[in-house]
């Protein structure tokens, strides 16, 4: 039965198919895979790939880094972009403290605790600038991102302060700045590094427990640490591809 109406329907379906195929082609046209196949890669690999090293064996817990960070970045009182934790491992459990983020250093632990201690050390913490950052994935407005050189940053103009990212970060490095009411975090002092300086905390560390540099430069201290391959990252099970390499990291550290 070939009535004109059924012919029209066939023509319509054919056109629909052709149309969606064309639309589909148009959508993949700028896709990276297509770009790679056609040799049209718009952007080249970034010049820098920054990383941070924290050497727990060297940290003396003086708090210079925390003070420097708070001054450099006008971090509100009581909030911290970087801080120091003191671990005291005893047979009865692990005691962790961080009075005011360790910014004024530490007083000696209680004598009873000191006697019991099997092992004790300081652990500086800061944003890990993860290559697979959970905080970026959850941001509903695209206000946080990883720059091509590896800095995980917050766009303060765009952030709506919903604090999803604060909850998503496995390392607890993000907070809502209670003066600006937006998400805040360590930037690895992006403003300094972009002018050829080191991050503030690295500048003031008296024992070189903090190192910062470019992994693309084989002579940099961080590249050598990564090469030596005796580093660990915090929470490797979170698969965040953390870019803060810790030396002397013990398994009790969380």
């Amino acid at each position: 039965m070939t009535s004109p109406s059924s012919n029209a329907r066939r023509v319509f379906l054919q056109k629909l198919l052709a149309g969606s195929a064309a639309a589909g082609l148009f959508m993949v046209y700028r896709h990276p895979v297509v770009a790679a196949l056609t040799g049209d890669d718009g952007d080249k690999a970034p010049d820098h790939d920054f990383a941070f090293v924290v050497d727990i064996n060297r940290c003396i817990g003086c708090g210079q880094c925390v003070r420097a960070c708070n001054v450099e970045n006008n971090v509100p009182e009581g909030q911290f972009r970087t801080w120091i934790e003191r671990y005291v491992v005893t047979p009865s459990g692990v005691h962790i403290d961080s009075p005011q983020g360790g910014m004024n250093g530490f007083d000696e632990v209680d004598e009873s605790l000191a006697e019991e201690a099997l092992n004790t050390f300081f652990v500086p913490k800061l944003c890990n600038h993860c290559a697979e950052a959970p905080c970026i994935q959850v941001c509903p407005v695209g206000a946080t991102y990883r720059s091509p050189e590896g800095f995980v940053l917050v766009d303060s103009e765009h952030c709506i302060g919903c604090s999803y990212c604060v909850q998503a970060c496995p390392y607890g490095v993000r907070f809502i700045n209670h003066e600006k009411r937006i998400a805040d975090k360590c930037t690895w002092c992006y403003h300094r590094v972009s002018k050829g300086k080191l991050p503030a905390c690295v500048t003031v560390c008296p024992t070189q427990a903090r190192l910062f540099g470019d992994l693309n430069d084989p002579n940099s201290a961080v590249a050598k640490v990564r090469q030596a391959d005796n580093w660990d990252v915090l929470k490797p099970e979170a698969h965040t591809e953390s870019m803060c390499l810790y030396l002397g990291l013990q398994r009790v550290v969380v």
Partner: protein
Amino acid sequence: MNISPRSHIYRLIVLLVIVVVGFVAVRGLAIPSSWDSENFYRLDSLEELKLQPMHLGGNESCGGASCHDQERVAKHKTQLATVGRGSHKGLACENCHGPLSAHVSDDKKVASAVIDRENKLCLNCHAQLVSRPKDFPQFDTEANGHWYFDVEITKPCLDCHSPHNPRQMAAKKDKSKKQPKATSEQTSTNGEVQL
């Protein structure tokens, strides 16, 4: 009444056009101009973040035109090189003298740098803590030098230690205080007593 039989279609089309135009307009307003739709962020924010002013300068900013590396001021002011020779060579001047921005801004000295002569300054790094690395020098009343001179933790560290080169005796000598006597081999070439 001659209403077109297709008027409902036209009305729908008009509605559709309004919706599409509205959507495009709202989207255009909502998306920032420098939006990178591939990586999902505002490219301008990188430039904005670079504008943040610096407060710390690092030791490289202590040198400069008429500052702590000039012969002219060498007699009066501690030089980068002085600190660079002693066991405090790894320290930043800003560790003890406060951030650069409080001392110099726009290449002009705005105020004297902080000078803190309290023991607290030294003890911030040198107080004895079990959690510190064992090989880090920590204040110890039993250490040879301290035991010999009955040093209490309240005794001014600067009486004996020069802050810029702590293994060297402090420059100002108070004869009434017991000081370790220099033997010939302990005296360095510049006549200062080495610990």
